[in-house]
């Protein structure tokens, strides 16, 4: 098995490790670095559960070669809260009941983070387009849309 040295900046911290050349970002984050909030579901880019930010852009860690994103800034769900203060998006998800089984939640929140970074005041249609890559089987989406709208309007 061929290993190469790699450095990642995950949630603001530097990690130096040896990775398999063929390892996926999902595997490195979850299995090597222990960020278990990075969830795998479809493994084929259809569900968004494994979404993380790489240099500020939402990508699917299950379809990203770890070796190709060496040296980059990565943010996972574990990197959103500041100490014990949740990110406004996280608070809004809890408040609005935008979470049921919660398996899609980390990816959904990261996609919402990406959307609001790009567009701080999205319309309902823009929210739907921005989060369309994240499947949720439980909620029927209304409450997720409400939660993101609430943050966009400055709600806490």
């Amino acid at each position, binding site marked *: 098995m061929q290993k190469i040295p790699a450095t990642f900046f995950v949630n603001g911290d530097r990690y130096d490790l040896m990775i398999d050349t063929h390892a996926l970002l999902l595997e490195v984050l979850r299995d090597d670095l222990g960020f278990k909030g990075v969830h795998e579901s479809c*493994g*084929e880019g*259809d569900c968004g559960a494994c979404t993380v930010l790489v240099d500020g852009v939402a990508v699917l860690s299950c379809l990203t070669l770890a070796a190709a994103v060496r040296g980059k800034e990565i943010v996972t769900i574990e990197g959103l809260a500041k100490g014990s203060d949740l990110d406004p998006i*996280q608070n809004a998800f*809890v408040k609005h009941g935008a979470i049921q*089984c919660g*398996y899609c939640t980390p990816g959904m929140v990261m996609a919402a983070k990406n959307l609001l970074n790009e567009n701080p005041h999205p319309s309902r249609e823009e929210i739907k387009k921005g989060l369309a890559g994240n*499947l949720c*089987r439980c909620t*029927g989406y209304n409450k997720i849309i409400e939660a993101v709208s609430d943050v966009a309007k400055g709600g806490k």
Partner: protein
Amino acid sequence: MQEELRVVGKRVPVKENFDKVQGKADYCATITLPGMLVGKLLHSPHAHARVVSVDTSRAEGLQGVKAVVTKKDDPRKIFTWNVMTYQLPDGEPQDQYIFDDVVRYVGEPVAAVAAVNEEIAKKAVDLIEVEYDVLPAVFSVEDAVKKGAPRVHDTAENNIGAPPTPVFCYGDVEKDFSESDTIVEGVFSTSKQSQAGLENAGCVAEWRNGRLTVWSQAQLPHMTKRMIAQALDIPESTVRVIQPFAGTGFGAGTDLCPEPYACLLTMKAGAPVKVALTRSEDLRMRFTREHIVRVEMKMGVKKDGTPMALKAKYTGDAGAYMGKILSGCGVALASNITEYEFKSMYQEIEAIYTHHLACGAMRGFGGMQSTFAREILVDEVCEKIGMNPIEFRKKYHRGVGGLGWFPDTKISSCGLDACLDVGAERIGWKGKWQGWGAKKEGIRRRGVGVAAMGWLSGAQPMLLEHTNATLKFNSDGTCTLIGSPGLLGQGVLAAHCQIAAEVLGIDYDDVRPLTPQDTDITGFDIGTHASRGCYCIGRAVEKAAQQARELFLERASKKLGVAADALDIKERRIFCKDDPEKGIEFREIAQDTIYSFGKDCRQITVNATIEPTEFAPPWQAGFAEVEVDTETGVVEVIKMIIAHDIGRAINPTVVEGQLEGGQLQGIGFALFEDIIISSENGVNLTDSFNKYKIASMLDCPDHEALLVELGDPTGPFSAKSCGESGIFLQAPAIANAIYDAVGIRLRDVPMTPERVLAALKNKSSTQTN
């Protein structure tokens, strides 16, 4: 209804969600144990074959492989993945082995491997050599019953799992049909929907010091424990089932899936083993929605609409094993009784084996299929007699005291009229429904449709619904709620905490639910299915809280020198009703129960048992507005409204979430969700989210769930269920709206553009002829 509720009815946050939103919640998928091995399954590529030999020597020789299991390791105890079987006195059919001599569907496991990592496990699976004697297979119920058709099970002649059997019939349908003025009938088909929770099927099993611990997505944990023991032929007390958070549910956890294989592997390897299926394996192996492949229904009414006779037959495509097909058909039939005052009903069920993946249960169990057929036929009847379809439903639904879904049951409450009113108002029925035969023009045409039904809050009295709930009080006046509904994200634990806090006069934050749940700790509970969580378990929680309240008051009574019945508890304080100034903090009493230096230590721990008998039907009305593109057959849902009589919403946010989630699954069922299995070789052609589509946010139309809270005399704080109700009415309401828009009657789900266009073509060719 009780006044001045402080906790019940409030939109308090679900406690587990703080962990979930931070990625800190543990699922089977995220659990790691020291020394844990990776388990992988070898699946049959054939729909029907005799397994002649399985050579595992090369796999076993691979460095890093710790165990390979095959039929040689199977204790050969007949069992079923359907753990619900224990809820019936005579059980449901059991026809499975962990590994059998014959494989009966593509994807059925033939062997399993545990290895130190996934790559080695996969390589080892590839090194197992299986010799199959491939046999002819059968892929439809029609072919299965033909003379000389290949047999799925030696014991089932003509593949008949259950012959046509009439159930719960009453009156004389033939006489009532002959006295009917209008008769409509149809043959309907529905799809094999997948529960498709985002977490794939998976579990972890650990055999250590003679005990087997299984981390499972089980919804019915105590019966899961019993079934695992049965399959492995070990004492039930040897098995412990832990329910971490589950990223799936909707019925999926009422059947086993990877558990038996993980258990065999850990028992052989002596180390913990995780078997996490891929999405493809999940879709090929996980028992699907009960597949009632055909519903034949006939309905007769008088000129004024008076319901006379209803006759129906439900045919289940069991697939390779009986799973839950019989109870699915049974519930289709039984739930069909609740809605309308038919003078007579004759309904029968049958189940047939095929070489399809077998079926279990999904949200809306059985009621989906009978409701689809019935509500379309009601629409047809209304057109024939020239009656407003809302009017018919209001006039002829059963009411309080009427016959329920099971013989000798009575309807305890009914808010359907209010549901029909608020739903019609919200969709704008008055302006949008232009009467029967309204002329519509243009390429894109709009229409509206309505449907209605009554469901249940737990499957009593048909099934055992025994529940225990325990409250254990701490010295600071808080308590732990110990129960085992499963952690599917249904939010029911929030409702349970609210019920307990309300009864006890303490705060929501003072009641903490046990997570993860563990059969070594929790009392017996059926678990989560049949919309029972809030109603059945909630009643046990309410009862436990009442008993605890009495114990607290008793103790306070001694302290205060006041009779217990003169005391009340509010806002964490116990006080005299007549003299509110006189009182004591709840937590002081709690502390005294534990740190009592007056030699009266007695921690308050209360267990309550419930065996409900009433079924408290929630009622609902569904309204769809659609736009049909007559050139392409594409149906766009413009608006979908469901109005629910849920008794009382203990936590409205949670209730809406359940209903809205069901709604979108119902739209998927109506329009696009379908497991497609090749009729040539039995291969599941929809084994990914790329091929089996579930709705994304962009497929989410303007939709709403409206709550009607008129109370039920039997429910905890007058609540009824909401777990399944959201999913039933999309398919029939959309079908009826399509008819209103373009005049075609669809009888098959999903109503794809392909089917709509074919029906449109068919209509125009019959008209020109």
